[in-house]
Protein backbone atom coordinates (compact mmCIF):
# COMPACT_ATOMS: atom_id res chain seq x y z
CA UNK A 1 0.00 0.00 0.00
CA UNK A 2 1.36 3.40 -0.91
CA UNK A 3 0.52 6.72 0.64
CA UNK A 4 -1.48 9.04 -1.62
CA UNK A 5 0.09 12.34 -2.63
CA UNK A 6 -2.57 14.13 -0.62
CA UNK A 7 -1.88 12.27 2.64
CA UNK A 8 1.86 12.62 2.16
CA UNK A 9 1.50 16.39 1.65
CA UNK A 10 -0.64 16.65 4.79
CA UNK A 11 1.90 14.71 6.84
CA UNK A 12 4.75 16.80 5.46
CA UNK A 13 2.87 20.03 6.23
CA UNK A 14 2.36 19.07 9.87
CA UNK A 15 5.93 17.78 10.25
CA UNK A 16 7.10 21.09 8.82
CA UNK A 17 4.96 23.01 11.30
CA UNK A 18 6.27 20.84 14.15
CA UNK A 19 9.89 21.43 13.18
CA UNK A 20 9.50 25.16 12.55
CA UNK A 21 10.70 26.29 16.03
CA UNK A 22 13.92 24.33 15.49
CA UNK A 23 14.52 26.25 12.27
CA UNK A 24 13.73 29.50 14.06
CA UNK A 25 16.19 28.52 16.82
CA UNK A 26 18.89 27.87 14.22
CA UNK A 27 18.39 31.07 12.23
CA UNK A 28 17.24 33.36 15.02
CA UNK A 29 14.37 34.61 12.82
CA UNK A 30 11.88 35.39 15.59
CA UNK A 31 9.48 37.03 13.18
CA UNK A 32 8.90 33.73 11.42
CA UNK A 33 7.65 32.19 14.68
CA UNK A 34 5.22 35.09 15.24
CA UNK A 35 3.96 34.78 11.67
CA UNK A 36 3.44 31.06 11.93
CA UNK A 37 1.74 31.25 15.32
CA UNK A 38 -0.75 33.56 13.63
CA UNK A 39 -1.06 31.19 10.68
CA UNK A 40 -1.70 28.21 12.95
CA UNK A 41 -4.40 30.08 14.89
CA UNK A 42 -6.20 31.30 11.79
CA UNK A 43 -5.86 27.82 10.31
CA UNK A 44 -7.77 26.54 13.35
CA UNK A 45 -10.51 29.06 12.67
CA UNK A 46 -10.57 28.08 8.99
CA UNK A 47 -10.78 24.36 9.84
CA UNK A 48 -13.76 25.08 12.09
CA UNK A 49 -15.40 27.16 9.37
CA UNK A 50 -14.90 24.35 6.89
CA UNK A 51 -16.95 22.05 9.09
CA UNK A 52 -20.06 24.10 8.28
CA UNK A 53 -19.00 25.60 4.96
CA UNK A 54 -17.45 22.63 3.24
CA UNK A 55 -19.11 19.64 4.85
CA UNK A 56 -22.38 21.20 5.95
CA UNK A 57 -22.91 23.48 2.94
CA UNK A 58 -23.82 26.33 5.31
CA UNK A 59 -22.22 29.41 3.82
CA UNK A 60 -21.55 31.37 6.97
CA UNK A 61 -20.12 34.81 6.29
CA UNK A 62 -19.78 35.73 9.92
CA UNK A 63 -17.21 33.37 11.28
CA UNK A 64 -14.91 36.16 12.42
CA UNK A 65 -17.52 36.99 15.08
CA UNK A 66 -16.38 33.94 17.04
CA UNK A 67 -12.76 35.06 16.79
CA UNK A 68 -13.88 38.32 18.34
CA UNK A 69 -16.13 36.81 20.98
CA UNK A 70 -13.48 34.33 22.10
CA UNK A 71 -10.95 37.12 22.13
CA UNK A 72 -13.15 39.56 24.01
CA UNK A 73 -14.02 36.91 26.61
CA UNK A 74 -10.30 36.61 27.37
CA UNK A 75 -9.73 40.35 27.14
CA UNK A 76 -12.69 41.40 29.29
CA UNK A 77 -11.92 38.85 32.01
CA UNK A 78 -8.26 39.90 32.01
CA UNK A 79 -9.39 43.52 32.25
CA UNK A 80 -11.43 42.63 35.32
CA UNK A 81 -8.42 40.92 36.89
CA UNK A 82 -9.35 37.31 36.16
CA UNK A 83 -6.28 35.98 34.41
CA UNK A 84 -6.64 32.23 34.93
CA UNK A 85 -6.89 30.44 31.63
CA UNK A 86 -8.97 27.77 33.32
CA UNK A 87 -11.70 30.41 33.72
CA UNK A 88 -11.03 32.49 30.61
CA UNK A 89 -10.98 29.73 28.04
CA UNK A 90 -14.13 27.91 29.12
CA UNK A 91 -15.94 31.26 29.21
CA UNK A 92 -14.63 32.05 25.71
CA UNK A 93 -15.90 28.71 24.42
CA UNK A 94 -19.24 29.00 26.19
CA UNK A 95 -19.84 32.55 24.96
CA UNK A 96 -19.06 31.56 21.37
CA UNK A 97 -21.26 28.48 21.65
CA UNK A 98 -24.14 30.58 22.95
CA UNK A 99 -23.76 33.16 20.19
CA UNK A 100 -23.59 30.38 17.61
CA UNK A 101 -26.72 28.83 19.08
CA UNK A 102 -28.72 32.05 18.77
CA UNK A 103 -27.38 32.97 15.33
CA UNK A 104 -27.72 29.41 14.08
CA UNK A 105 -31.25 28.97 15.40
CA UNK A 106 -32.37 32.08 13.51
CA UNK A 107 -30.22 31.81 10.39
CA UNK A 108 -30.82 28.13 9.70
CA UNK A 109 -34.46 28.93 9.05
CA UNK A 110 -33.26 30.50 5.79
CA UNK A 111 -31.49 29.18 2.72
CA UNK A 112 -28.80 30.11 0.26
CA UNK A 113 -27.99 33.74 -0.15
CA UNK A 114 -30.25 34.75 2.76
CA UNK A 115 -28.10 32.59 5.01
CA UNK A 116 -24.91 34.28 3.77
CA UNK A 117 -26.30 37.74 4.44
CA UNK A 118 -27.85 36.96 7.79
CA UNK A 119 -24.73 35.43 9.26
CA UNK A 120 -22.90 38.46 7.92
CA UNK A 121 -25.36 40.84 9.54
CA UNK A 122 -25.18 39.11 12.91
CA UNK A 123 -21.40 39.29 12.87
CA UNK A 124 -21.61 42.99 12.08
CA UNK A 125 -24.02 43.38 14.97
CA UNK A 126 -21.46 41.83 17.31
CA UNK A 127 -18.88 44.17 15.80
CA UNK A 128 -20.98 47.25 16.54
CA UNK A 129 -21.79 46.08 20.04
CA UNK A 130 -18.16 45.77 21.10
CA UNK A 131 -17.33 49.03 19.29
CA UNK A 132 -19.89 50.70 21.51
CA UNK A 133 -18.74 49.37 24.87
CA UNK A 134 -16.58 52.16 26.20
CA UNK A 135 -15.53 50.26 29.32
CA UNK A 136 -13.61 47.74 27.21
CA UNK A 137 -11.97 50.20 24.87
CA UNK A 138 -14.74 50.63 22.30
CA UNK A 139 -13.34 51.29 18.83
CA UNK A 140 -9.75 51.47 20.09
CA UNK A 141 -9.67 47.89 21.29
CA UNK A 142 -8.47 46.40 24.51
CA UNK A 143 -4.88 45.67 25.48
CA UNK A 144 -4.32 42.42 27.37
CA UNK A 145 -1.49 42.92 29.81
CA UNK A 146 -1.17 39.33 30.88
CA UNK A 147 -1.62 36.19 28.79
CA UNK A 148 -3.92 33.50 30.17
CA UNK A 149 -2.35 31.85 33.20
CA UNK A 150 -2.22 28.08 33.50
CA UNK A 151 -0.03 27.78 36.58
CA UNK A 152 3.67 27.05 36.62
CA UNK A 153 3.64 24.09 34.26
CA UNK A 154 2.44 25.96 31.19
CA UNK A 155 3.83 29.41 30.49
CA UNK A 156 2.05 30.93 27.50
CA UNK A 157 4.28 33.99 27.46
CA UNK A 158 7.06 31.73 26.20
CA UNK A 159 6.66 32.10 22.44
CA UNK A 160 7.78 28.57 21.58
CA UNK A 161 5.51 27.01 24.20
CA UNK A 162 2.62 29.11 22.96
CA UNK A 163 3.30 28.07 19.35
CA UNK A 164 3.21 24.41 20.33
CA UNK A 165 -0.02 24.89 22.31
CA UNK A 166 -1.63 26.46 19.24
CA UNK A 167 -0.29 23.74 16.96
CA UNK A 168 -1.46 20.97 19.30
CA UNK A 169 -4.93 22.52 19.40
CA UNK A 170 -4.94 22.84 15.62
CA UNK A 171 -4.04 19.18 15.20
CA UNK A 172 -6.65 18.17 17.76
CA UNK A 173 -9.24 20.25 15.87
CA UNK A 174 -8.35 18.72 12.52
CA UNK A 175 -8.61 15.27 14.12
CA UNK A 176 -11.94 16.16 15.74
CA UNK A 177 -13.39 17.49 12.48
CA UNK A 178 -12.10 14.44 10.60
CA UNK A 179 -13.72 12.10 13.12
CA UNK A 180 -16.92 14.13 13.10
CA UNK A 181 -17.40 14.16 9.34
CA UNK A 182 -16.77 10.43 9.16
CA UNK A 183 -19.21 9.66 11.95
CA UNK A 184 -22.92 9.05 11.60
CA UNK A 185 -23.48 12.66 12.60
CA UNK A 186 -21.16 13.83 9.83
CA UNK A 187 -22.91 11.64 7.29
CA UNK A 188 -26.24 13.23 8.17
CA UNK A 189 -24.71 16.70 7.83
CA UNK A 190 -23.21 15.89 4.46
CA UNK A 191 -26.41 14.20 3.38
CA UNK A 192 -28.35 17.34 4.29
CA UNK A 193 -25.94 19.38 2.17
CA UNK A 194 -26.63 17.36 -0.95
CA UNK A 195 -30.32 16.69 -0.43
CA UNK A 196 -32.02 17.99 2.64
CA UNK A 197 -35.52 16.97 1.63
CA UNK A 198 -34.43 13.37 1.24
CA UNK A 199 -32.67 13.36 4.61
CA UNK A 200 -35.85 14.66 6.21
CA UNK A 201 -37.89 12.05 4.40
CA UNK A 202 -35.66 9.34 5.84
CA UNK A 203 -36.51 10.77 9.22
CA UNK A 204 -33.54 12.89 10.29
CA UNK A 205 -34.41 16.20 11.96
CA UNK A 206 -31.87 18.03 9.77
CA UNK A 207 -32.44 21.42 11.39
CA UNK A 208 -31.25 20.11 14.75
CA UNK A 209 -28.27 18.32 13.21
CA UNK A 210 -27.23 21.43 11.34
CA UNK A 211 -27.68 23.59 14.42
CA UNK A 212 -25.42 21.31 16.49
CA UNK A 213 -22.86 21.40 13.70
CA UNK A 214 -23.09 25.20 13.58
CA UNK A 215 -22.57 25.45 17.33
CA UNK A 216 -19.55 23.11 17.25
CA UNK A 217 -17.96 25.21 14.51
CA UNK A 218 -18.69 28.41 16.43
CA UNK A 219 -17.20 27.03 19.63
CA UNK A 220 -14.02 26.02 17.84
CA UNK A 221 -13.95 29.48 16.29
CA UNK A 222 -14.12 30.90 19.81
CA UNK A 223 -11.13 28.78 20.78
CA UNK A 224 -9.18 30.30 17.89
CA UNK A 225 -10.32 33.72 19.13
CA UNK A 226 -9.01 33.07 22.65
CA UNK A 227 -5.68 32.01 21.14
CA UNK A 228 -5.54 35.00 18.82
CA UNK A 229 -6.18 37.42 21.69
CA UNK A 230 -3.36 35.81 23.67
CA UNK A 231 -1.09 35.95 20.64
CA UNK A 232 -1.70 39.63 19.90
CA UNK A 233 -2.07 40.55 23.58
CA UNK A 234 -4.75 42.82 22.17
CA UNK A 235 -8.28 42.50 20.92
CA UNK A 236 -10.27 45.05 18.95
CA UNK A 237 -13.57 45.20 17.09
CA UNK A 238 -11.66 44.89 13.80
CA UNK A 239 -10.99 41.25 14.76
CA UNK A 240 -14.61 40.57 13.83
CA UNK A 241 -14.96 42.96 10.92
CA UNK A 242 -16.61 41.27 7.97
CA UNK A 243 -13.52 41.37 5.78
CA UNK A 244 -11.92 39.03 8.32
CA UNK A 245 -14.76 36.58 7.77
CA UNK A 246 -13.98 36.95 4.08
CA UNK A 247 -10.34 36.08 4.73
CA UNK A 248 -11.41 32.90 6.52
CA UNK A 249 -13.62 31.88 3.58
CA UNK A 250 -10.71 32.53 1.25
CA UNK A 251 -8.52 30.23 3.34
CA UNK A 252 -11.11 27.48 3.26
CA UNK A 253 -11.76 27.68 -0.46
CA UNK A 254 -8.09 28.17 -1.35
CA UNK A 255 -7.12 25.17 0.74
CA UNK A 256 -9.98 23.02 -0.42
CA UNK A 257 -13.26 22.11 1.23
CA UNK A 258 -13.01 18.41 0.61
CA UNK A 259 -10.88 17.41 3.59
CA UNK A 260 -10.50 18.30 7.23
CA UNK A 261 -6.89 19.44 6.76
CA UNK A 262 -7.51 21.35 3.52
CA UNK A 263 -8.05 24.75 5.15
CA UNK A 264 -4.66 24.44 6.87
CA UNK A 265 -3.04 24.49 3.44
CA UNK A 266 -5.21 27.46 2.58
CA UNK A 267 -4.26 29.42 5.69
CA UNK A 268 -0.55 28.77 5.16
CA UNK A 269 -0.76 29.62 1.46
CA UNK A 270 -2.81 32.81 1.88
CA UNK A 271 -0.89 34.28 4.80
CA UNK A 272 2.54 33.40 3.38
CA UNK A 273 1.44 34.86 0.04
CA UNK A 274 0.29 38.05 1.78
CA UNK A 275 3.64 38.28 3.55
CA UNK A 276 5.62 37.76 0.34
CA UNK A 277 3.50 40.20 -1.67
CA UNK A 278 3.69 42.85 1.03
CA UNK A 279 7.48 42.70 0.80
CA UNK A 280 7.30 43.30 -2.94
CA UNK A 281 4.86 46.19 -2.87
CA UNK A 282 2.99 48.25 -0.34
CA UNK A 283 -0.07 47.90 -2.56
CA UNK A 284 -0.13 44.10 -2.35
CA UNK A 285 -3.94 43.65 -2.28
CA UNK A 286 -4.01 44.94 -5.85
CA UNK A 287 -2.26 41.70 -6.83
CA UNK A 288 -3.98 39.43 -4.32
CA UNK A 289 -7.51 40.53 -5.28
CA UNK A 290 -7.37 39.55 -8.96
CA UNK A 291 -5.43 36.44 -7.96
CA UNK A 292 -8.38 35.35 -5.81
CA UNK A 293 -10.71 35.92 -8.74
CA UNK A 294 -8.48 33.78 -10.95
CA UNK A 295 -8.41 31.02 -8.32
CA UNK A 296 -12.22 31.06 -8.18
CA UNK A 297 -12.45 30.92 -11.95
CA UNK A 298 -9.77 28.38 -12.77
CA UNK A 299 -8.72 26.40 -9.69
CA UNK A 300 -11.85 25.02 -8.11
CA UNK A 301 -11.25 22.51 -5.37
CA UNK A 302 -8.29 24.47 -4.06
CA UNK A 303 -4.92 23.07 -3.06
CA UNK A 304 -6.52 19.96 -1.61
CA UNK A 305 -8.29 19.32 -4.91
CA UNK A 306 -5.00 19.60 -6.80
CA UNK A 307 -3.30 17.22 -4.37
CA UNK A 308 -6.15 14.73 -4.52
CA UNK A 309 -5.96 14.72 -8.31
CA UNK A 310 -2.21 14.15 -8.33
CA UNK A 311 -1.12 10.54 -8.66
CA UNK A 312 2.29 9.02 -8.31
CA UNK A 313 3.87 8.33 -11.71
CA UNK A 314 2.87 4.82 -12.73
CA UNK A 315 5.60 2.26 -12.31
CA UNK A 316 6.29 0.07 -15.27
CA UNK A 317 5.51 -3.54 -14.49
CA UNK A 318 8.31 -5.90 -15.32
CA UNK A 319 7.31 -8.35 -18.06
CA UNK A 320 6.67 -11.87 -16.87
Amino acid sequence: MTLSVRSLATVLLFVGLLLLPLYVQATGDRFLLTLFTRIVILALAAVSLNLILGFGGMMSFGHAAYLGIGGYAVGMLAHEGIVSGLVQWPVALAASALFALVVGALSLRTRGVYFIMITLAFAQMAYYVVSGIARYGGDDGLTIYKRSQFGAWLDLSNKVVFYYVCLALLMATVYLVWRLVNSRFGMVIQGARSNETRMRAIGFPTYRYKLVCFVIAGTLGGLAGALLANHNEFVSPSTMYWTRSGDLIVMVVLGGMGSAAGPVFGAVALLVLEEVLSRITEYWPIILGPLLLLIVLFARGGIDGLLAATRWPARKKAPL
Partner: protein
Amino acid sequence: MTLFIEQCLNGLQFGLLLFLLAAGLTLVFGIMDLVNLAHGSLYMIGAYFAATFAAWTGSFVLGAVMAFFATLLVGMAVEVIAMRRLYGRDHLDHVLGTFGLILFFDEAVRLIWGPDGMSLPLPSWLNTAVTIVPGFSYSAYRLSIIVVTLAVAGGLYLLVMRTRIGMLIRAGASNREMVGALGINIKLLYTLVFGLGAALAGLAGLMQAPILTVQVGMGENILILAFVITVIGGIGSIRGSFIAALFVGFVDTLGRSFFPDILRTLLSPEAAATLAPALSSMLIYLLMAIVLIVKPEGLFSASGR
Protein backbone atom coordinates in the same frame (compact mmCIF):
# COMPACT_ATOMS: atom_id res chain seq x y z
CA MET B 1 -41.06 68.58 17.80
CA THR B 2 -38.90 70.45 15.28
CA LEU B 3 -36.08 68.05 16.07
CA PHE B 4 -38.37 65.11 15.51
CA ILE B 5 -39.49 66.35 12.09
CA GLU B 6 -35.92 67.10 11.16
CA GLN B 7 -34.81 63.61 12.18
CA CYS B 8 -37.70 62.12 10.25
CA LEU B 9 -36.54 63.97 7.14
CA ASN B 10 -32.99 62.78 7.80
CA GLY B 11 -34.31 59.24 8.10
CA LEU B 12 -36.19 59.62 4.83
CA GLN B 13 -33.10 60.98 3.12
CA PHE B 14 -30.86 58.20 4.46
CA GLY B 15 -33.44 55.55 3.61
CA LEU B 16 -33.81 56.78 0.04
CA LEU B 17 -30.05 56.83 -0.35
CA LEU B 18 -29.84 53.26 0.91
CA PHE B 19 -32.54 52.34 -1.57
CA LEU B 20 -30.27 53.36 -4.46
CA LEU B 21 -27.67 50.89 -3.22
CA ALA B 22 -30.10 48.13 -2.36
CA ALA B 23 -31.92 48.48 -5.69
CA GLY B 24 -28.74 47.79 -7.63
CA LEU B 25 -27.88 44.87 -5.37
CA THR B 26 -31.30 43.30 -5.57
CA LEU B 27 -31.58 43.92 -9.32
CA VAL B 28 -28.29 42.15 -9.99
CA PHE B 29 -29.23 39.31 -7.67
CA GLY B 30 -32.74 38.95 -8.97
CA ILE B 31 -31.74 38.88 -12.61
CA MET B 32 -28.25 37.42 -12.75
CA ASP B 33 -28.46 35.42 -9.51
CA LEU B 34 -25.18 37.08 -8.57
CA VAL B 35 -24.12 38.01 -5.03
CA ASN B 36 -22.05 41.14 -5.52
CA LEU B 37 -19.97 42.15 -2.52
CA ALA B 38 -18.11 44.66 -4.67
CA HIS B 39 -21.25 46.81 -4.88
CA GLY B 40 -19.88 48.98 -2.08
CA SER B 41 -16.72 49.56 -4.09
CA LEU B 42 -18.79 51.11 -6.86
CA TYR B 43 -20.38 53.40 -4.27
CA MET B 44 -16.89 54.44 -3.20
CA ILE B 45 -15.75 54.94 -6.79
CA GLY B 46 -18.77 57.15 -7.50
CA ALA B 47 -17.80 59.37 -4.57
CA TYR B 48 -14.15 59.59 -5.65
CA PHE B 49 -15.11 60.35 -9.24
CA ALA B 50 -17.48 63.09 -8.10
CA ALA B 51 -14.85 64.71 -5.88
CA THR B 52 -12.30 64.58 -8.70
CA PHE B 53 -14.55 65.75 -11.53
CA ALA B 54 -16.05 68.51 -9.43
CA ALA B 55 -12.55 69.79 -8.70
CA TRP B 56 -11.63 69.64 -12.41
CA THR B 57 -14.69 71.31 -13.79
CA GLY B 58 -15.34 73.61 -10.89
CA SER B 59 -19.01 72.68 -10.99
CA PHE B 60 -20.68 70.39 -8.50
CA VAL B 61 -23.54 69.37 -10.78
CA LEU B 62 -21.33 68.79 -13.81
CA GLY B 63 -18.93 66.73 -11.67
CA ALA B 64 -21.82 64.68 -10.32
CA VAL B 65 -23.23 63.96 -13.79
CA MET B 66 -19.80 62.98 -15.10
CA ALA B 67 -19.23 60.75 -12.07
CA PHE B 68 -22.57 59.04 -12.63
CA PHE B 69 -21.70 58.09 -16.20
CA ALA B 70 -18.12 57.22 -15.31
CA THR B 71 -19.35 54.75 -12.67
CA LEU B 72 -21.77 53.33 -15.23
CA LEU B 73 -18.81 52.68 -17.54
CA VAL B 74 -16.70 51.18 -14.74
CA GLY B 75 -19.59 48.90 -13.82
CA MET B 76 -20.04 47.72 -17.40
CA ALA B 77 -16.30 47.12 -17.71
CA VAL B 78 -16.29 45.09 -14.48
CA GLU B 79 -19.18 43.03 -15.80
CA VAL B 80 -17.46 42.30 -19.10
CA ILE B 81 -14.07 41.52 -17.55
CA ALA B 82 -15.02 39.64 -14.40
CA MET B 83 -18.67 39.21 -13.43
CA ARG B 84 -19.74 37.59 -16.69
CA ARG B 85 -17.56 34.62 -15.86
CA LEU B 86 -19.21 34.17 -12.47
CA TYR B 87 -22.81 33.72 -13.64
CA GLY B 88 -24.15 30.27 -13.05
CA ARG B 89 -21.49 29.54 -10.45
CA ASP B 90 -22.01 28.74 -6.81
CA HIS B 91 -22.85 31.66 -4.49
CA LEU B 92 -19.66 30.88 -2.60
CA ASP B 93 -17.70 31.56 -5.78
CA HIS B 94 -19.48 34.91 -6.12
CA VAL B 95 -18.60 35.81 -2.55
CA LEU B 96 -14.94 34.94 -3.08
CA GLY B 97 -14.55 36.48 -6.50
CA THR B 98 -16.20 39.76 -5.56
CA PHE B 99 -14.26 39.79 -2.28
CA GLY B 100 -11.14 39.72 -4.46
CA LEU B 101 -12.57 42.66 -6.41
CA ILE B 102 -13.04 44.65 -3.18
CA LEU B 103 -9.37 44.17 -2.32
CA PHE B 104 -8.47 45.29 -5.82
CA PHE B 105 -10.70 48.37 -5.85
CA ASP B 106 -9.76 49.54 -2.36
CA GLU B 107 -6.10 49.30 -3.18
CA ALA B 108 -6.47 50.80 -6.66
CA VAL B 109 -8.24 53.80 -5.12
CA ARG B 110 -5.50 54.12 -2.50
CA LEU B 111 -2.91 53.98 -5.30
CA ILE B 112 -4.62 56.58 -7.49
CA TRP B 113 -6.02 59.03 -4.94
CA GLY B 114 -3.71 58.39 -2.00
CA PRO B 115 -4.51 57.16 1.49
CA ASP B 116 -5.95 60.46 2.74
CA GLY B 117 -9.64 61.05 2.33
CA MET B 118 -11.05 63.66 -0.01
CA SER B 119 -13.84 66.10 0.50
CA LEU B 120 -16.41 67.36 -1.94
CA PRO B 121 -17.40 70.93 -1.06
CA LEU B 122 -20.97 71.94 -1.73
CA PRO B 123 -21.72 74.95 -3.92
CA SER B 124 -23.13 77.84 -1.94
CA TRP B 125 -26.65 77.53 -3.42
CA LEU B 126 -26.95 74.04 -1.93
CA ASN B 127 -25.12 74.75 1.27
CA THR B 128 -27.99 76.65 2.84
CA ALA B 129 -31.15 75.92 4.72
CA VAL B 130 -34.53 76.35 3.11
CA THR B 131 -37.56 77.35 5.09
CA ILE B 132 -40.24 74.75 4.52
CA VAL B 133 -42.87 76.21 6.81
CA PRO B 134 -42.30 79.37 8.85
CA GLY B 135 -40.18 78.44 11.82
CA PHE B 136 -38.89 75.22 10.30
CA SER B 137 -35.99 75.08 7.91
CA TYR B 138 -34.06 72.15 6.52
CA SER B 139 -30.75 71.66 4.74
CA ALA B 140 -31.20 72.42 1.04
CA TYR B 141 -28.72 69.73 0.08
CA ARG B 142 -30.45 66.97 2.02
CA LEU B 143 -33.74 68.10 0.57
CA SER B 144 -32.28 67.90 -2.93
CA ILE B 145 -31.09 64.35 -2.18
CA ILE B 146 -34.66 63.42 -1.29
CA VAL B 147 -35.95 64.94 -4.52
CA VAL B 148 -33.30 63.31 -6.72
CA THR B 149 -33.64 59.85 -5.14
CA LEU B 150 -37.42 59.97 -5.36
CA ALA B 151 -37.14 60.92 -9.02
CA VAL B 152 -34.66 58.09 -9.61
CA ALA B 153 -36.87 55.60 -7.79
CA GLY B 154 -39.84 56.69 -9.92
CA GLY B 155 -37.74 56.49 -13.06
CA LEU B 156 -36.55 53.02 -12.10
CA TYR B 157 -40.14 51.92 -11.58
CA LEU B 158 -41.14 53.24 -14.99
CA LEU B 159 -38.07 51.67 -16.59
CA VAL B 160 -38.70 48.24 -15.14
CA MET B 161 -42.49 48.17 -15.39
CA ARG B 162 -43.31 50.30 -18.43
CA THR B 163 -40.58 49.97 -21.03
CA ARG B 164 -39.42 47.29 -23.42
CA ILE B 165 -36.02 47.09 -21.70
CA GLY B 166 -37.79 46.64 -18.38
CA MET B 167 -39.93 43.90 -19.84
CA LEU B 168 -36.79 42.12 -21.03
CA ILE B 169 -35.19 42.56 -17.60
CA ARG B 170 -38.20 41.01 -15.88
CA ALA B 171 -38.35 38.25 -18.46
CA GLY B 172 -34.65 37.58 -18.01
CA ALA B 173 -35.18 37.27 -14.28
CA SER B 174 -37.76 34.53 -14.64
CA ASN B 175 -36.30 32.57 -17.55
CA ARG B 176 -33.01 33.57 -19.04
CA GLU B 177 -32.74 30.74 -21.58
CA MET B 178 -36.14 31.57 -23.00
CA VAL B 179 -35.28 35.23 -23.43
CA GLY B 180 -32.05 34.21 -25.12
CA ALA B 181 -33.92 31.79 -27.37
CA LEU B 182 -36.23 34.57 -28.49
CA GLY B 183 -33.27 36.33 -30.01
CA ILE B 184 -32.50 38.85 -27.29
CA ASN B 185 -28.84 39.61 -26.73
CA ILE B 186 -28.84 38.45 -23.13
CA LYS B 187 -25.14 39.23 -22.62
CA LEU B 188 -25.67 42.85 -23.54
CA LEU B 189 -28.78 43.01 -21.37
CA TYR B 190 -26.83 41.71 -18.37
CA THR B 191 -24.04 44.21 -18.99
CA LEU B 192 -26.59 47.01 -19.07
CA VAL B 193 -28.32 45.82 -15.89
CA PHE B 194 -25.04 45.53 -14.05
CA GLY B 195 -23.98 48.95 -15.30
CA LEU B 196 -27.31 50.38 -14.14
CA GLY B 197 -26.83 48.87 -10.67
CA ALA B 198 -23.29 50.25 -10.56
CA ALA B 199 -24.46 53.70 -11.63
CA LEU B 200 -27.13 53.72 -8.90
CA ALA B 201 -24.48 52.78 -6.33
CA GLY B 202 -22.22 55.48 -7.73
CA LEU B 203 -25.06 57.99 -7.50
CA ALA B 204 -25.59 57.10 -3.85
CA GLY B 205 -21.87 57.49 -3.23
CA LEU B 206 -21.53 60.82 -4.93
CA MET B 207 -24.56 62.26 -3.15
CA GLN B 208 -23.26 61.07 0.20
CA ALA B 209 -19.79 62.50 -0.55
CA PRO B 210 -20.43 66.08 0.64
CA ILE B 211 -21.94 64.80 3.90
CA LEU B 212 -19.20 62.31 4.79
CA THR B 213 -15.52 62.18 4.00
CA VAL B 214 -14.65 60.36 0.80
CA GLN B 215 -12.31 57.60 1.92
CA VAL B 216 -11.13 54.09 1.14
CA GLY B 217 -13.44 51.49 2.63
CA MET B 218 -16.44 53.86 2.84
CA GLY B 219 -18.46 51.40 0.76
CA GLU B 220 -17.98 48.48 3.09
CA ASN B 221 -19.99 49.75 6.04
CA ILE B 222 -22.93 50.85 3.98
CA LEU B 223 -22.87 47.65 1.92
CA ILE B 224 -23.88 45.68 4.99
CA LEU B 225 -26.86 47.99 5.51
CA ALA B 226 -27.82 47.45 1.87
CA PHE B 227 -27.62 43.70 2.45
CA VAL B 228 -29.87 43.96 5.47
CA ILE B 229 -32.36 45.91 3.37
CA THR B 230 -32.38 43.40 0.53
CA VAL B 231 -32.88 40.60 3.05
CA ILE B 232 -35.73 42.37 4.84
CA GLY B 233 -37.38 43.39 1.57
CA GLY B 234 -36.98 39.99 -0.03
CA ILE B 235 -34.09 39.43 -2.39
CA GLY B 236 -34.92 40.31 -5.98
CA SER B 237 -37.83 42.58 -5.14
CA ILE B 238 -37.29 46.26 -5.92
CA ARG B 239 -40.56 47.26 -4.29
CA GLY B 240 -39.55 45.31 -1.17
CA SER B 241 -36.18 46.98 -0.99
CA PHE B 242 -37.80 50.41 -1.37
CA ILE B 243 -40.03 49.83 1.63
CA ALA B 244 -37.31 48.13 3.64
CA ALA B 245 -34.84 50.92 2.85
CA LEU B 246 -37.21 53.59 4.15
CA PHE B 247 -37.89 51.46 7.21
CA VAL B 248 -34.21 50.95 7.95
CA GLY B 249 -33.42 54.59 7.27
CA PHE B 250 -36.05 55.72 9.77
CA VAL B 251 -35.23 53.14 12.42
CA ASP B 252 -31.52 53.80 12.21
CA THR B 253 -31.74 57.59 12.24
CA LEU B 254 -34.49 57.90 14.84
CA GLY B 255 -32.95 55.14 16.95
CA ARG B 256 -29.61 56.89 17.07
CA SER B 257 -31.08 60.25 18.01
CA PHE B 258 -33.84 59.28 20.43
CA PHE B 259 -32.90 55.89 21.82
CA PRO B 260 -30.28 57.27 24.26
CA ASP B 261 -32.89 59.67 25.71
CA ILE B 262 -35.46 56.92 26.08
CA LEU B 263 -32.90 54.72 27.84
CA ARG B 264 -31.91 57.53 30.14
CA THR B 265 -35.44 57.75 31.49
CA LEU B 266 -35.42 54.02 32.21
CA LEU B 267 -31.88 53.41 33.44
CA SER B 268 -29.19 55.18 35.40
CA PRO B 269 -27.24 57.74 33.29
CA GLU B 270 -24.04 55.64 33.27
CA ALA B 271 -25.83 52.47 32.23
CA ALA B 272 -27.67 54.38 29.51
CA ALA B 273 -24.46 55.97 28.25
CA THR B 274 -22.84 52.52 27.98
CA LEU B 275 -25.76 50.72 26.42
CA ALA B 276 -27.22 53.34 24.10
CA PRO B 277 -24.59 53.41 21.32
CA ALA B 278 -24.38 49.62 21.24
CA LEU B 279 -28.12 49.11 21.29
CA SER B 280 -28.94 51.77 18.72
CA SER B 281 -26.52 50.25 16.23
CA MET B 282 -28.02 46.83 16.95
CA LEU B 283 -31.54 48.05 16.29
CA ILE B 284 -31.71 47.34 12.56
CA TYR B 285 -30.17 43.90 13.00
CA LEU B 286 -32.78 43.11 15.62
CA LEU B 287 -35.38 44.33 13.17
CA MET B 288 -33.96 41.99 10.53
CA ALA B 289 -33.98 39.08 12.95
CA ILE B 290 -37.64 39.72 13.76
CA VAL B 291 -38.61 39.94 10.09
CA LEU B 292 -36.83 36.68 9.41
CA ILE B 293 -38.49 34.89 12.29
CA VAL B 294 -41.86 35.90 10.91
CA LYS B 295 -41.04 35.62 7.21
CA PRO B 296 -37.79 33.78 6.41
CA GLU B 297 -37.94 34.87 2.77
CA GLY B 298 -38.25 38.58 3.46
CA LEU B 299 -41.32 40.77 3.29
CA PHE B 300 -41.77 40.83 -0.49
CA SER B 301 -39.85 37.85 -1.70
CA ALA B 302 -39.63 37.45 -5.47
CA SER B 303 -41.22 34.13 -6.29
CA GLY B 304 -39.19 30.97 -6.34
CA ARG B 305 -36.15 32.17 -4.49
